[in-house]
């Protein structure tokens, strides 16, 4: 939807969230420099070539892991910072402005969501590239597979936006969107202990509910592990976390559009 991405960008520039991104990025850059001497000491160690290789691998994992956590924080900030955008856009007095224009409701909603994903995702990628560039210069390390970490962050944001967008349209409330995002995060984290629950609980109904939720809901923790493994050249045995999480998001986006098209403002 023409105009909505630019509008989202203007909205971002106007908000204090940009400062928060900046502060987190500066802290991350300072951390990179803070551990530089430790990395140099490791390198200077008089060790055999096999050990040097192991040290290189460890440093590589440190770079990817650090970048992953940094982008994770930015995803968290983005989810919190954008959860109110959809309810605000379609609040009383503002919805009329957007909905009276000659554009379909589907294109208005998806245009805004795409605008949020691309503008905020783009900012995350920029901040990530800045940190990665600094790490490469400081540690003299680079591997192209590190970009899987960026993909992980963008996929995470895509899934989170489906949740906050859906609840935002359904309830029209910023608070509800935030609470839904928190609730989902807690439930999906608890579900990572599914196997332990199966060993402890005997009730078949409970087990069925746990199983259904596990297969239905996105699996952010496992998604992170999956992309980290790809970034570290490790084999991926189970693609279920990726496909089921993406399917969850797509279904939620379809439901959001369906709901939005039928709603009175």
């Amino acid at each position: 939807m023409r105009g909505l991405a630019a509008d989202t960008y203007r909205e971002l520039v106007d908000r204090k969230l940009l400062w928060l991104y900046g502060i987190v990025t500066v802290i991350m850059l300072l951390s990179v420099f803070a551990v530089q001497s430790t990395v140099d000491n490791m390198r200077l160690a008089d060790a055999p070539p096999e050990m040097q290789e192991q040290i290189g691998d460890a440093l590589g994992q440190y770079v990817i892991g650090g970048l992953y956590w940094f982008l994770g924080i930015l995803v968290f900030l983005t989810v919190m910072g954008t959860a109110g955008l959809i309810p605000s856009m379609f609040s009383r007095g503002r919805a009329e402005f957007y909905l009276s224009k000659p554009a379909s409701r589907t294109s208005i909603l998806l245009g805004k969501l795409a605008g949020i994903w691309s503008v905020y995702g783009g900012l995350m990628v920029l901040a990530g590239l800045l940190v990665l560039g600094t790490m490469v210069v400081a540690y003299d390390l680079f591997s192209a597979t590190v970009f899987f970490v960026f993909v992980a962050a963008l996929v995470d944001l895509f899934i989170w936006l489906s949740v906050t967008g859906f609840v935002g349209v359904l309830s029209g409330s910023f608070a509800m969107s935030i609470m839904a995002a928190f609730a989902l995060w807690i439930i999906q984290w608890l579900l990572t202990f599914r196997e332990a629950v199966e060993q402890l609980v005997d009730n078949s109904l409970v087990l069925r509910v746990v199983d259904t939720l596990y297969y239905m809901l996105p699996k952010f923790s496992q998604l992170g592990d999956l992309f980290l493994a790809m970034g570290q050249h490790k084999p991926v045995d189970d693609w279920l976390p990726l496909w089921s999480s993406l399917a969850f998001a797509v279904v939620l986006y379809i439901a959001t559009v369906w709901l939005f098209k039928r709603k009175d403002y």
Partner: protein
Amino acid sequence: MNIVTLEQLVKIYHTRMRRGNITALNEVSLDIEQGEIFGLLGPNGAGKTTLMKILLGITRPTTGQVVVMGLPPGDAGSREKVGYLPENHRFPSHLTGMGLLQLAGRMCGMPTSAIKGRAEELLAVVGMDKWGDTKIRKYSKGMMQRIGLAQALINDPDLLCLDEPTDGVDPVGKVEIRQVLEKVRAQGKTVLLNSHLLSEVESVADRVAILSKGRVKRLDSVSNLTSRQLEYEIEADVGDRFIEIPEEIGKQIAVTANGMRVELKKKEGINYIIDELRQRRINIYSIQPVRLSLEQSFFELVQDQSTPGGTQGTGGAV
């Protein structure tokens, strides 16, 4: 040619809890013709804003037919040449006035090269050319209305829907907005005007629909609504004389400073009055039908509806 056609339009809001359903519009039928300024009047909760939102596809009707520019309002194409200034709007506050017009232009599918020029032209039209680069959050209420009118005009609409356009605008601004409306009408465009200010509607509207409790109580031209068809003000040297008028013709209802006021049973009765006055060698200077302000007419109608056995409108009543 009809720009808007409504047939048996019903809108019921289903509410939760014990309040039951709210019928916002009940079997509303009306047509709005090209080139007219059409006023929507009614007390709060009469259904005026709901009607406008249905025309724009913002709210969906429960039953009934709605056609806007030849298309149902759910079709985005019906809004291609429609502009809308909502009531109590809250435009995105992170934008400047110019930014808002640019966003509105883009959402209307206008070419980027055309938007800036059009936006500058409209900022001048609504007297906001010096404030285009200021954030909307810094605007006063009157400035918000002006920029709202400008965004409604960005796509050069054939149908302009204005919900309380002069709300919060100073007297000078009101005159300027009225001039804009007259200019729009002169271009052959149609305006649907919803306003609580009856004098404002009276001064610009061609036809008016009066809504009450979701129904159209009266639909007529402003001149018909404001004239009392069978009451006449006669300027003549009557002095304080009482003129006897047969009951089947009518009655003299008042002696005024310049003459008298009569109420007739039929229009033709005015000839009897003239003959009677001339036979008595009383000079007649003018005879005019008594006119009410739209406000008086509106209150008479609304009060009439609220009393048991009140009339259900006449003439163009629906």
